[in-house]
């Protein structure tokens, strides 16, 4: 059984049935899944969670769809890694990295897609579609293949080659659109009205899809022994993930899985080349002005973020902050995480680590806090960003002499440093 009581407009609170609806007919506000928290409180226990599968579905009662056999590739329960070497470089104390590159298609999107398509199948949809900056396309194509659904994914034409290949290989339709992600998104939002029999995971099924990101909070709390961290750093594209991470920690307390009310400071990470939410935060305004993105962090290149306002509100209310980081800082962030912790992140992960470094230097992220940085996509997806700066440190003839000569050179500089 599930504990969903329906959908509700986040702005005007009008109720809706739990169908493929994503915005309020009246005010266009986003719809949210409403749960029966009282019933959850008396029926969900830590022991039940622990006895569940090693996937996001161990938290099924807190997800918006109930299905004994969800569409699942083995998503979730990704490593939470204690990052002492990175912490030492940044002057921090207890630092953890949530390594969500370890999901089946290499990003956190598997969490939201597993939830969205399981619900879509339950609602009778046969076609899985999405507007994507790449990671979502990967995940929708893979999950649709596993479920035997038709997939049609829409991506901006200038996407990284790895993200195109790792989507197309699953055999679905891949439509490259001549425009930015915001153009792709607008097109899909309009298509949703014309093709009501298609499940656009981040449009008409978005209400359910977004809930999958709560598992990023659930897992961290469980991995910390059912405690919440003091401060989390979350990358911001649309703002949905950040908002849902905050909601996840709050829900754990609401249903009794966390004893104490969590007070998690939530900070947002954006690329300077696409920072509408960080800019509004810096300017102290509520108005988020859309921008035309120019950044190597293409998975965050959303100039017109759907949940930007909510991400801003969440960060402000929690006592967190935003930072925006340049392309060079992003690359430094990728290399810093790789050489200190052995984790290779995509450009969006570089945004997270660079933001962490910036906020630590500013004293916003503090040494006395237990900090979790969310690294949500694998570096192999965006290798183009590093091809000019990461290569062999020596190229030698296959002889002992050449080897010793190269080592003699290397001995003065052990390993490349940014």
């Amino acid at each position, binding site marked *: 059984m599930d504990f969903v009581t329906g959908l509700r407009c986040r*702005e005007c609170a009008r109720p809706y049935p739990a169908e493929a609806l*994503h*915005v309020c*007919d*009246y*005010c*266009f*506000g*986003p719809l949210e899944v409403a749960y029966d928290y009282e019933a959850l409180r008396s029926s969900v226990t830590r022991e039940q969670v622990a006895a569940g599968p090693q996937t996001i579905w161990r938290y099924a009662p807190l997800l918006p769809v109930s299905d004994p056999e969800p569409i699942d590739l083995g998503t979730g329960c990704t490593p939470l890694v204690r990052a002492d070497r990175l912490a030492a470089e940044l002057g921090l104390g207890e630092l953890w990295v949530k390594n969500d590159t370890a999901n089946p298609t290499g990003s956190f999107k598997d969490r939201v897609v597993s939830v969205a398509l399981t619900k879509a199948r339950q609602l009778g949809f046969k076609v899985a579609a999405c*507007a994507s900056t790449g990671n979502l396309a990967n995940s929708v194509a893979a999950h649709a293949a596993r479920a035997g659904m038709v997939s049609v994914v829409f991506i901006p034409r200038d996407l990284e080659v790895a993200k195109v290949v790792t989507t197309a290989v699953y055999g679905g339709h891949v439509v490259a659109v001549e425009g930015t*992600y*915001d*153009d792709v*998104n*607008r097109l*899909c*939002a*309009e298509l*949703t*009205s*014309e093709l*009501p029999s298609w499940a*656009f995971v*981040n*449009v008409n099924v*978005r209400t359910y899809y977004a809930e999958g990101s709560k598992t990023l909070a659930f897992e961290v709390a469980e991995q910390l022994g059912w405690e919440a961290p003091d401060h989390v750093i979350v990358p911001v*594209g*649309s*703002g*949905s*993930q950040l908002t849902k991470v905050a909601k996840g920690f709050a829900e754990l307390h609401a249903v009794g899985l966390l004893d104490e009310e969590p007070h998690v400071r939530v900070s947002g990470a954006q690329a300077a080349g696409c920072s509408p939410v960080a800019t509004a935060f810096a300017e102290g305004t509520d108005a988020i*002005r*859309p921008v*035309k993105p120019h950044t190597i962090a293409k998975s965050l290149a*959303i100039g*017109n*973020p*759907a*949940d930007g*306002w909510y991400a801003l509100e969440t960060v402000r209310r929690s006592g967190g902050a935003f930072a925006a980081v340049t392309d060079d800082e992003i690359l430094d962030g990728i290399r810093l995480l790789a050489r200190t912790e052995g984790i290779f992140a995509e450009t969006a992960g570089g945004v997270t680590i660079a933001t962490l470094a910036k906020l630590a230097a500013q004293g916003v992220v503090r040494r006395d806090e237990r900090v979790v940085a969310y690294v949500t996509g694998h570096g192999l997806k965006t290798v183009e960003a590093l091809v000019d700066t990461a290569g062999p440190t020596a190229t030698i003839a296959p002889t002992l002499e050449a080897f010793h000569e190269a080592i003699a050179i290397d001995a003065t500089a052990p390993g490349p440093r940014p």
Partner: protein
Amino acid sequence: MSVTVRVPAQLRTLTGGASQATVDGSTVGEVLKALDGAHPGFGDRLFDEGGSLRRFVNVFLADEDVRFLEGLDTPVADGQTLSIVPAVAGG
């Protein structure tokens, strides 16, 4: 200026189910006002009490967000298409 307005599913109860409507106006604001005249109810749904577009409504002229143009004052040309699109999508 005669302009075609594409109407999202959420607002088609106001147009008798039609996916588009054709109205006159010389700016985006005038077109939307004319739309409300032809199909009463659009004004309430699109604008807040202060007369600004609601936070979660996006309007595109020839597929460009009017916030990158001149907003409601953006001039429209004969035969152009204006799209009303719910903002909550994507990501």
